[in-house]
């Protein structure tokens, strides 16, 4: 009898979890550079990722940055217009570029 009671108890006990409510992922303000085209960067890039992704790529060529923008369009299906893609690439290259076209 005792055994049956115990089994029932276990069956009714909800799964214990370490976290019992919604987690909150904190916001981190990354020191992104201001400049021409920043509004377009903000409108397009921030939908999917923080500015941490931009500033932690290292200094890169213009072709690299264009490639990154294209990756977002082709693989991640970001709806970035060709006009915006050019503005974003120019912004990235100006502030996070290595001075090389390729």
């Amino acid at each position, binding site marked *: 009898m005792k055994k049956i009671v115990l089994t029932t108890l276990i069956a009714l006990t909800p799964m214990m979890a370490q*976290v019992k409510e919604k987690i909150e*992922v*904190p916001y981190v303000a990354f020191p992104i550079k201001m400049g021409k085209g920043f509004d377009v960067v903000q409108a397009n890039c921030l*939908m999917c990722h923080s500015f941490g992704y931009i500033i932690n790529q*290292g200094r890169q060529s213009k072709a690299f940055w264009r490639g*990154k923008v294209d990756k977002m369009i082709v*693989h991640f299906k970001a709806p970035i217009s060709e006009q915006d893609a050019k503005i974003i690439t120019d912004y990235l290259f100006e502030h996070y570029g290595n001075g090389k076209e390729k």
Partner: protein
Amino acid sequence: MKRREFFKKAAVTAGAAALGTTAAEAGTTHQPIDNRKISDVAFPEKRPLITYSDRPPLLETPREVFTCALTPNDQFFVRWHMPDIPTYIDPDKFTISVNGMVNKALKISLKELKEDYEQVEVAAVLQCGGNSRSAFSPTAGGIQWGNGAMGCALWKGVRLRDILDRAGVKKGAEWLAVRGSEKAAYYETPDFIRELHLDELDDHVIIAYQMNGEDLPYLNGFPVRLVIPGVYSDSWIKMIDNITVSDKYEKLFFMDHAYVVPDNECECETPEKKFPKTKPIYRMNVKSVIGYPTNGDKLTLKSQAVVRGVAFDGGAGIKTVKISLDGGKTWEDAILDSGKLGRYAYRTFRYSFKPKKLGKLEIMAKAINKLGEEQPLAKDIKWNHGGYKYNGIDVVTVEVV
């Protein structure tokens, strides 16, 4: 080449990455960046770590943690790919669906996973393929990790093979698509899926719900993640919600385009000329990291100092770790732990010595695995576009005072 074949080939050639040809315009490698500050922001269930992004969260473990065989959950690195991670999962309602070419589709609750299947444990290293990417010059695209996009935990869960046996895999099925529940901002963005060949499943491949005796932290994939010991972490799908069995391989962005290295002997290329053929990163190469001392630490002259660190590989097992205090001219064996955590876990090592000269001192650590593969010098590692699979000899510079 068929995927199955290059998985086999990858296992054989891993660790031989340093052999190959050099070209005049070749990229170079050096010690990864090691001066990043720990953030003052703590993420859920984590202590403050080195923080590269909050959305999706990218957190790196600081070097000093790499003296322990098991990395504490609250210091374990974090890497997600999509911006929307479920922030609450009800453990009573959560299920993993198993469907496709099976005799009986399953919806497995956490309770069933914990009670209706054989429970197994495996200690294994989880390492991002891009760990130490900041070692590559010119800068390889991607997050510029130092040495801390890795950790080792004791994972508890259920063999994926047992789950498939319960569902009954139909004849002709070859592939498993394992999906994580992270979501992109746009509906059209492909889900984060890993295709596994049925041949890849051995007894060590598990669906884990526990990490070092506790629930997985949300940021490490609560409530369940895939554990594939010996293999880079892009394969260890977090927050698994669906497994589809199929006879077809579906081409995937992350596996076929992002996490790839040149498909040649040296897995290398030059910045100017990308090697046209690629293969997914797969089995990890041999590597070691010094956890103490760290760069800039002060050691006392003639006082006994103990160097500590961790070493691992893709599952062959570590044979020795050697330490050099003279720039690599002479090497001495460090003492390894018992290895009781198994061949997929960190082997901790320690090496004691008396600093005999004032001033700067370079401490180098080199691991050698049971296949005889050893870590090359940082400068001998060959460049690749993605900055993957860096495993250079670790160097820490201290000051003897």
